[in-house]
């Protein structure tokens, strides 16, 4: 599903910063992978490249068999819209739209009719137990509810892959556990998942932990989430 070959990325700020120094990575379809590492190790940078939000300098990135390189704005937008679902630490819901409208937004860019996309949005909100919150605005929702809305938004287009940057970063441990439970269920429905986190408790709930250090993959830890007790606290 994801294949990275010798990816390099340098930020040219006040002084050049070589953030990713030759990343090689394979993520198979249906895998659930976490990326861990110290702050500043390049986790978000890597995830943004995976999400075609940012570009890389050298190397090759294949997503779903297609080389992601020098894409036009439109191609990139299309690919993000149809194959990738994003979950952010700060939710990134649009404040003046209701939960339903937020969930329906990606479908708007697929030219799905208003009625159809609202129905689909309601269906997904239902799935996350938020049916009765459909007409509420983000500032009327709790952190956990917001994250569930954003998960519904990520899934409504039936993407092949979910990219989550610290999805539980703004949540308490109990809510974090709930969110992780949902993400596992999503993964079990066959959707590939890459989660950036610096919480061990989160990483332990994924099948593969990629340790990033100073812009290179230090090691990849194979993990069996079924072995951990899901009632244990995450934080």
């Amino acid at each position, binding site marked *: 599903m994801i294949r990275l070959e010798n990816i390099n990325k340098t930020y040219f700020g006040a002084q050049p910063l070589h953030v990713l120094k030759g990343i090689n990575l394979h993520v198979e379809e249906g895998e659930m992978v976490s990326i861990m590492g110290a702050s500043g190790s390049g986790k*978000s940078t890597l995830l943004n490249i995976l999400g075609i939000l940012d570009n890389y300098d050298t190397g090759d990135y294949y997503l779903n068999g297609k080389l992601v390189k020098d894409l036009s704005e439109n191609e990139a937008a299309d690919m993000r819209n149809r194959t990738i679902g*994003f979950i952010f630490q700060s939710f*990134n819901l649009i404040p003046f739209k209701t939960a339903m409208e937020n969930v329906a937004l990606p479908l*708007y860019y697929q030219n799905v009719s*208003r009625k159809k996309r609202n129905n689909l949005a309601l269906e997904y909100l239902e799935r996350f137990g938020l049916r009765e919150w459909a007409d509420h605005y983000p500032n009327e929702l709790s952190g956990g509810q917001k994250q569930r809305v954003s998960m519904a938004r990520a899934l409504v287009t039936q993407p092949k892959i979910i990219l989550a940057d610290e999805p539980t970063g703004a949540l308490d441990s109990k809510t974090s556990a709930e969110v992780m439970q949902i993400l596992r269920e999503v993964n079990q429905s066959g959707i590939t998942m890459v989660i950036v986190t610096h919480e061990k408790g989160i990483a332990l709930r994924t099948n593969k932990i990629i340790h990033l250090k100073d812009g290179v993959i230090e090691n990849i830890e194979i993990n069996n989430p079924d072995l951990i007790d899901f009632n244990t606290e995450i934080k």
Partner: protein
Amino acid sequence: MFDFDGLNEIWQTITRNKTRSFLTAFGVFWGIFLLVILSSTGNGFENGLMKQVEGVTPNTAFFYTSTTSEPYKGYQKGRSWTMQMSDLEAIREAFPCIQAISPESSLWSSEEKNVVYNSRGESFSVKGVMPEYNDIQKSKILKGRFINDTDIASCRKVCLLGKKVYETMFEKGEDPLGKMVRVNGIYFQVVGVVRSYTENVNINGTIDESVLLPFTTMQQVYGMGDKIYFFALVADDDTPISSFEDDLKLLIKERHDIAPTDETAIESFNLSEIFGAFKGMFLGIHILIWIVGLGTLMSGIIGVSNIMLVTVKERTREIGVRRALGAKPKNIISQVLSESLLLTVLAGLVGMCIGVGIMAIVAMITSSMPSSDTMFQDPNMGFGAAVTATVIIIVSGLLAGVLPAWRAIQIKAIDAIREE
């Protein structure tokens, strides 16, 4: 570019900050409102003036003789002279652009009450004219007919009464046609009643207070021979009279042995020059109005553009999220353009409607005022100007959105995603 499913999307963002949207739109509203009010008022005055001169053909001139002011070919200066019908024929031949030409002779009576009917007498002016006179100073025939060629050819003793003359001399509702009226001692049969189109522009006295006689009859019965002191003519619209006015005078001077340089022997009065002056004045007023209106509108548009720029900046995160979720540049452009378009068009149309509404009320009030010679008539913007204004609103709405839209597509998804 403008998708209707997106209308709700755009409406949401506009109504999100109602005060700001209102203040933004107000500049455009005010510009259009001002434009409508000013240009309608300008038109009102123009229409008022046009009403005054209704029935007057602009391309009209009047020529009249006077004593010579230079000696020439053995004649002394200060010589009295007159024109003849043959002069008018020569003029008509020399200048084919002349559509109508008619002499006009007047009778100033020493009698106190020169027009008499049924022992009722009153003083009115008496004019002798040709049938073509009605093409020069148009009058409305209320009863009967105008003077015709047979009247001229056989010097019939017929007359037309001005409206006022008829009203003074006859009982209300009395049929004047066929009745005999005594004019300066001679009886004429009434063949018609006429009214001038306007009461305000009249050369040589108003028709309403005149008795019109066939030119030839008048010359004959009052012993005026073939003398013409005054004539009027109308040329076709493509040939301004000023273009041949001097040549025409030269022709007459030559026929009567008058020095070509003599400025006073024959003089003229050209209506088109006066019309031209008025037209120029109103053109100037209209240009001024549009400059003021468009200037105000322009500052409104710049206001819209400015606020949209601020809005785009504030919405960096939202736009970035949209991009991350799959919005293409064209989606973002169309959203920003539609927003500024909707805001501008709404404000513009409201301004136009209110302006037109107010002017309609003003028009109602002015038209209900009794005086018919009001200088202010039917103040409206005109359909063409309204269409122009609408097109300007739409175009400027799009223009106002161009810079903000360009800024908006500079925002990349990554800008929004990056924390802080």
